[in-house]
């Protein structure tokens, strides 16, 4: 039961300098990767913004759902007064057409929704996928067949269409929870398949055989020998799933089945901005840039993670 190798390949290459734990090694590699640092910085910024949303809106004094009729032109269907969607010292990113709500306040509260839903949905998918994938891979036989077929079935659904259908028929309740559940439900087989494949190769590795020979319990083998070796691929995969989920949440909000009004989310802001882009392009740019930056940051980080954990693949 030596320190478990990170991945099968990394263990085989034995390239780790002596005296450093593999995780520390990964940390070092990440620190030297400018793309990873940039991704981390952007994520940290948005997370901070989301956490501090009430403080930030207290700074400018506008709640996310406060109407400001004085900032919009009532005769013109509520087009913002002033250049660039009504940007000024008081409204840092302008106001929403039609209502005069502060775009900055809605943007930071929207960050809460986008990040919370996508991270939570990724968490659900990861946990469910790992548990079921591990079970299938380690148990084999009928259990494997059963779980694998379920995974195939869920994967073969046209996802977005099913999500739309599911969210609209689910009973009235907490919409955020429903979204997390639905997105997690359609996300777990991806991770489940990877985990199952990894488990299958790990099952016959020498250290697992050795553990078995010493009479270790099956559950202990799973948790002490197999699971630690799965962490790296799961982590990489989860990091790369988050941006996909951010996009999905935005898409669902864009299609009108995201969070309920008046709660804001970036997708919902973009959906409203579509109608207004010719009159007020600023309103379109703000949620668009936020989405772009967040997805980019998570993708950069995920890539960097993969490279750091598997140096042989770096530079692909």
């Amino acid at each position: 039961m030596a320190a478990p190798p990170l991945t099968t390949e990394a263990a085989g290459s034995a390239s780790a300098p002596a005296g450093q734990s593999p995780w520390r090694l990964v940390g070092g590699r990440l620190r030297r990767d400018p793309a990873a640092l940039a991704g981390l910085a952007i994520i940290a910024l948005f997370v901070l913004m989301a956490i501090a949303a009430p403080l930030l809106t207290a700074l400018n004094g506008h709640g996310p759902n406060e109407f400001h009729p004085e900032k919009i032109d009532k005769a013109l269907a509520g087009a913002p007064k002033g250049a660039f969607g009504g940007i000024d010292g008081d409204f840092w990113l302008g106001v929403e057409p039609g209502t005069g709500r502060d775009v900055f306040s809605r943007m930071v509260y929207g960050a809460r929704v986008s990040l919370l839903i996508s991270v939570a949905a990724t968490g659900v998918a990861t946990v469910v996928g790992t548990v079921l994938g591990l079970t299938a891979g380690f148990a084999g036989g009928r259990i494997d067949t059963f779980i694998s077929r379920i995974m195939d079935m869920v994967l073969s659904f046209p996802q977005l269409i099913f999500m739309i259908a599911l969210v609209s028929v689910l009973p009235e309740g907490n919409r955020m929870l429903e979204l997390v559940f639905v997105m997690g439900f359609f996300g777990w087989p991806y991770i489940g398949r990877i985990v199952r494949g990894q488990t299958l190769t790990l099952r016959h590795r020498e250290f697992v055989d050795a553990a078995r020979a010493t009479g270790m319990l099956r559950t202990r083998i799973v948790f002490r020998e197999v699971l630690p070796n799965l962490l790296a691929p799961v982590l990489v995969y989860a990091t790369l799933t988050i941006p996909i989920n951010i996009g999905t949440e935005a898409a669902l909000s864009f299609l009108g089945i995201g969070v309920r009004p008046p709660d804001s989310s970036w997708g919902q802001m973009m959906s409203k901005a579509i109608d207004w882009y010719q009159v007020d392009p600023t309103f379109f740019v703000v949620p668009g840039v936020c989405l772009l930056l967040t997805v980019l940051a998570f993708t950069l980080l995920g890539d960097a993670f993969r490279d750091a954990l598997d140096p042989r693949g770096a530079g692909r």
Partner: protein
Amino acid sequence: MKRPVRTCFTLALSLAVAGGLSACGSGDDDSSAAKSGGTLTVLFNDDFAHLDPQRNYVMFAMDFGTRLLYRTLTTYAAKPDQEGTKVVPDLATDTGTTSDKGKTWTFHLKPGLKFEDGSPITSAEVKYGVERSFAPDLPEGPGYARSMLEGGDKYKGPYKDKDGLASIEAPDPQTIVFHLKEPSMDWPLITTLPTFAPVPKAKDTGVNFDKRPFSSGPYKVESYDRGKKLALVRNTYWQKSSDGVRQANPDKIVVEEGIAQPTIDQRLIADQGNDQRAITLYSVASPSMPRILTRPDVKKRFVSATSLCTRFLGMNTSKPPFNDPKVREAMQYAIDKEAYRTAHGGSGVGELAGSYLPPAMTGGQPQDVYKAPPNGDPAKAKQMLAAAGKSAGFSIKLTTTSSEQGKAEAEAVQQGLARVGVKVEINAVSKSVYYDTIGDIKKEDELVFYGWCADYPSASSFIPPIFDGNNITPKGNTVVHQLNDKGMNEKIAAAMKANDPAQWQAVDRDLMGLSPMIPLIHDKLPLLHGSKVTGTFGHPIWEGEFDFATIGVK
């Protein structure tokens, strides 16, 4: 009795000018300059639900149909504003005569009227047309003939009942007589509806008549590819001399269907090539408004006329908290009508409403019962809520459509009521099931958006269908507030008999006192046309739609 919201939930906005029309290019001047010829292009974001005269019951399509494809016994003058609500003869020589105070109505047809194949239009075809509206296969049209004609409740239409309806008599080819159950002086207004368009029995194709209505008007269908294109050409047998209303200026009218409304707006704003001779069939999208109103050259081509429609917020009086009239009254002050109107399209889409009846139906006199400021009076509303024992506020649900605009309007109501501690949860449902949802009296939310347009300029086609408690039905309910007040129902019945605008105004005031709904706005329809289109004004009867009787191209 058409619900405006059924067809125009995307109603946008219009120009903020007093009187609307006078500033949007005078119809009369344009008409005199109009000349015959050319092709008019009509841009539409959808397809007509029905062009079959007996099934046509959507305001702008009724205008399109009765002005271009079929003639009715009577019709409305092709004039803007109040003058347009005047009934004039069409197929008939006058607007009908009665010898027994409205129980029997006699019309004489003009001589020499012809269908598109040259065959004569006689009273038999008018009778057959009205009888078609009784057929269970063709149920979509207005229900007046069914409910007002003697024996109408038993008659099943000409397909099943070959003998016809006895209460419509055609003693000779030029004369038609209607026998009503109850006397009604509104009958000449009702005969303006497309139900009263003639249909020859030999040309009746049943449900397929929709695709190719047989013309009695100035134009006939050349080709109709549903959802794509409808082309109308002149009906050469129609004579201007027999028609005092329709000018029939263009040689050809082409409706391009299924174009997104923002694209239509963009094309009309750009005003290039053939689009100079184009109009939008329905209201421009509200985000297009700033681009129209801020450019003087585009603004000149903008039309918005008041109509006989009002939009409301209905309060479900069948359950708490709105079973308490004091709470309902407080809502009249809590609501932010200005924010609602901005979300609906801005100050041009309508006048803020202070009572239910559109002013055009009470001699143009708007009535404001509670005199709350446009943004509401939260302080007063709070006091009233406290007096009603609701100082802690309450939580309710509001049904709206799941469109962007539907949600924006709901948010405007939400923030207004939040000021007095009322928490509103928005229940957004798809447009296609909206009326089924709010029309189910058991499942109806506490608050619902609602709207109503009068079929003809009389309060008797406005107040009874939406306020008379006797009209409450378990499903498909039109009395969405579900208030069933005996005294009020009697007052409505009395006003129906008297049919005096002043008495209707009093009923309107009394209803506001009971406060079953919050009146939001009296609608206007915002429209745009190309620079070479003439005779453009919004007709008050058909929701403010362009009058196709006068329209032409240069």
